[in-house]
């Protein structure tokens, strides 16, 4: 064994729902229904045994309508939908696994903060300290309209609201002091009211009295995950996040991004190692043929439509209005992470058609080869970047999950680069223990972030 321990997360970009590439994949047995828990349970159990630290479910609270201004293409081909409530799946996965962290995405714009703080505190009890929260501040306009809002609040003001939101949640999670619960059957005293406090939050965006009506949970507060890469997002992550998941294409970009996150943590008065940075990878095992080459049974025209619908949602604009066979430049998409990928691949700016046709099988950081080759590559990138781990984003089908967990994660466990799962650890402790950060430094310290 050599070098620093590597963390592994699994990122389910489809959220709780199949997505186009899952339900139509022939490797998903038709008997495994996407709308029942069984397939999710089966895959999560494999991850749990292999040493994956946590599993993140993305989420969106609306069906996109950017392409041709209609939800129809999205419905027709299951693009960015369907989406079920990840907070419902989380306890089922916890009941059937023993050590993996479960991280649902919950959106600050849509949940009343007290409701969310209470939900997560309960989930922490129910999972035995294995719950995380992927903090998302926004989403598509359709989501806002489902909640009766005319539009999403602007990007930076969403983060201002989210700063206050997370601070309020942290106050609620700390509203029962450690030791407040006595449970003495002789005197009949359950808790010491002197150690339970109102939070009396009256901020710019939220008001809440408290205390929470849930007693302190195993982690005190859930493990906080974030994925924003904008300057405001990085500032937010430095203040609040325990882990950041991002998409970078080169070792230089990864290293630079990780340094920015660490600097942001330091600026917020935290240890640089307090925020773990995860880079998205999509490993392709050579032993498993064409693992990531999605074989759409649909013809090329359908594939183009799917790609355009997907890209429209990603860029937030209707691409049916743009010419298909001209290079996509001058539309302001150049800085989008997806475009960076395509441009840096070939040098030349591709046409819209080229990008759209490749969308169905597009992956970032495709590490290809045998399990040993992929493990070598991951170790190399990890050591060059300096930390902290990878988030695997691949096919959400049992066959693929089993291949990657058994062969790639298994190899890294055998080499001593990934820790063996330990059911005795909470997610927070599991993540802290590997880097030497005292796990308890922030628990019960609601306002000590600045």
């Amino acid at each position, binding site marked *: 064994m050599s070098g620093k321990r590597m963390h592994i997360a699994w990122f389910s970009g489809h959220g709780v729902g*199949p997505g*186009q590439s899952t*339900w139509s994949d*022939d490797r998903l047995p038709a008997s495994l229904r996407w*709308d*029942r*828990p069984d397939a999710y349970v089966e895959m999560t159990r494999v991850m749990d045994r292999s040493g994956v630290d946590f599993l993140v479910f993305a989420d969106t*609270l*609306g*069906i996109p309508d950017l392409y041709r201004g209609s*939800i*129809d293409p999205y*419905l*027709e*081909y299951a693009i960015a*939908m*369907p989406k*079920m*409530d990840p*907070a*419902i*799946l989380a*306890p*089922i996965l916890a*009941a*059937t696994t023993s050590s993996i962290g479960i991280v649902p995405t919950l959106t600050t714009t*849509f*949940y*009343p903060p*007290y*409701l969310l703080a*209470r*939900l997560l*505190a*309960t*989930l922490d*009890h*129910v999972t035995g300290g294995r719950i995380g929260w992927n903090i998302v501040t926004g989403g598509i306009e359709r989501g806002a*309209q*489902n*909640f*009766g809002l005319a539009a999403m609040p602007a990007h930076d003001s969403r983060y201002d609201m989210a700063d206050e939101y997370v601070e309020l949640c942290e106050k609620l999670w700390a509203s029962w002091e450690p030791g407040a619960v006595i*449970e003495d059957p*002789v005197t*009949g*005293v*359950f*808790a*010491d*009211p002197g150690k339970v406090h109102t939070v009396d939050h009256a901020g710019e965006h939220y*008001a*809440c*009295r*408290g205390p929470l*009506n*849930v007693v302190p949970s195993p982690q005190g507060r859930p493990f906080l995950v974030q994925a924003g890469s904008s300057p405001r997002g990085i500032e937010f992550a430095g203040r609040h996040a325990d882990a950041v998941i991002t998409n970078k294409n080169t070792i230089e970009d990864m290293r630079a991004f990780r340094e920015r996150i660490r600097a942001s943590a330091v600026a917020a008065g935290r240890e640089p190692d307090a925020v773990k940075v995860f880079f998205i990878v999509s490993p392709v095992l050579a032993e498993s043929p064409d693992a990531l080459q999605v074989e*759409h*049974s*649909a013809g090329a025209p359908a594939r183009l439509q*799917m790609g355009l619908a997907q890209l429209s949602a990603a860029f937030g604009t209707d691409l049916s209005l743009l010419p298909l066979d001209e290079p996509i430049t001058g539309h302001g998409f150049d800085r989008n992470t997806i475009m960076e990928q395509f441009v840096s691949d070939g040098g030349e700016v591709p046409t819209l058609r080229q990008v759209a046709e490749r969308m169905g099988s597009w992956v970032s950081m495709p590490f290809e080869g045998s399990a040993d080759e992929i493990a070598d590559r991951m170790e190399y990138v990890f050591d060059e970047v300096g930390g902290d781990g990878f988030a695997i984003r691949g096919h959400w089908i049992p066959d693929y999950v089993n291949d990657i967990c058994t062969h790639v994660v298994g190899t890294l466990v055998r080499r001593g680069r990934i820790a063996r799962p330990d059911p005795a650890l909470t997610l927070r402790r599991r993540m802290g223990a590997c880097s030497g950060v005292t796990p308890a430094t922030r628990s019960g310290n609601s306002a000590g972030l600045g």
Partner: protein
Amino acid sequence: MVTPFRLIWFTSFGARHWDALDYTHYDWRRPEIYRDMARLLEKRGGFDAIVFADGPSVATIDGDFGPFVKYGLDGVYNDPVPLLAALSWHTERIGLVGTLSTSTYPPFLLARLFATLDHMSSGRAGWNLVTSEGGPNFGAATHMSKQERYDRADEYLDLVERLWDSWEPGAVLLDRASGRFADPSKVHETNFEGRYFRSRGPMTLPRSPQGHPVIMQAGGSDRGRQFAARHAEIIISHRNSPEAMKDFREDLRARMRTMGRDPDTCKIFFTVRPFIGDTLAEAKAMRTNALSSPTINLEVGLAALSARTGRDYRNDPLDEPLRTEAVDEAASAGILEQHTERGETLREAAMSEAMKETFVVEGDPRQVAERFAEVMDYVGGDGLAIRETMMPSTVLPITDRVAPVLREMGLVRDRYAHETFRENLLDPAFAAASRTVAAGGVR
């Protein structure tokens, strides 16, 4: 006695009874005890459902939460939703009902939550609809009137039902050959613009097995009864006597007929608190024992009564009849009625609140079963709700000693003929006796 009846368990995911011996090897904060008990209620009890009461905040009297925190009482609850999800994995047929308020959940969030739970449980989700306010924990400075809460709830339910209906049956194609997941012509925008709520829709996931969760309600006031008569498929009520139960049931069924609704599409349950011993004397001793627990005391009872009525009773004379003036009408409907009906003093009412007591049935297993049957026969149906913490010492006497007697009498469910909660609940031939009667047999 030929009136078959259903059983449900009415409980909470909370700290109450934290001092019970059952909790020396179980933790009330964790799912295991509920998992084990839910399996018993399903496999050996034939229960239709488990209902989790809930309130999102610690109760207070004049802003003081001290007594509630001190004894682990009203309001020290975990969120029941994650527990319902976990229980859906551990059980197969029993209905799973959560209490969620139309005043605290954004409608789209609630609609998606129940649709997901209904998918994941293969059609066993139920919603105990309450209108209680989130108050200062949700940033609200003022109270709504009861009328306004129900007006909002009417609109809320209309909206979430439209969201649940936004995908027609058959909208999902899952056609691997063409790559088509759904037929967009069968998915419709909601475009709801109400007085209180707006939502564009459609739902982000297909229609669930039951379409809508089973709707449960506990309205006690006139406005609440109107609401329940219109919308509820399960009504739960606390009444002190079989006469009061019968009156309540007949009132609700008459309201349904007036609205043009078939009253048999709604099942009315009355809460009971059983004490089951080997003998009647032992059952009575159990109740006395329960009353002498250090967590069942006057301080607790006065706090509970005050919180539930919105009137501070802590300085009233204990041994005089309960006073009813200056009670917050919105908070207290039906609660005081229970105590004044029995002519209770404040002390008696407080101790009853401390016990969370309801209609008491005590005796040996056969006596309890026979009393259940007698009450249901008199009331006319439809079911009893055991109001009790869910733990081995309360569940096992019911599932293993009382339920077998009732089954032998042919009065309760002896099988689940259907997959979904609603189908089982509304099945007229759910019990052996009703199947015999339906077949023209003589008992």
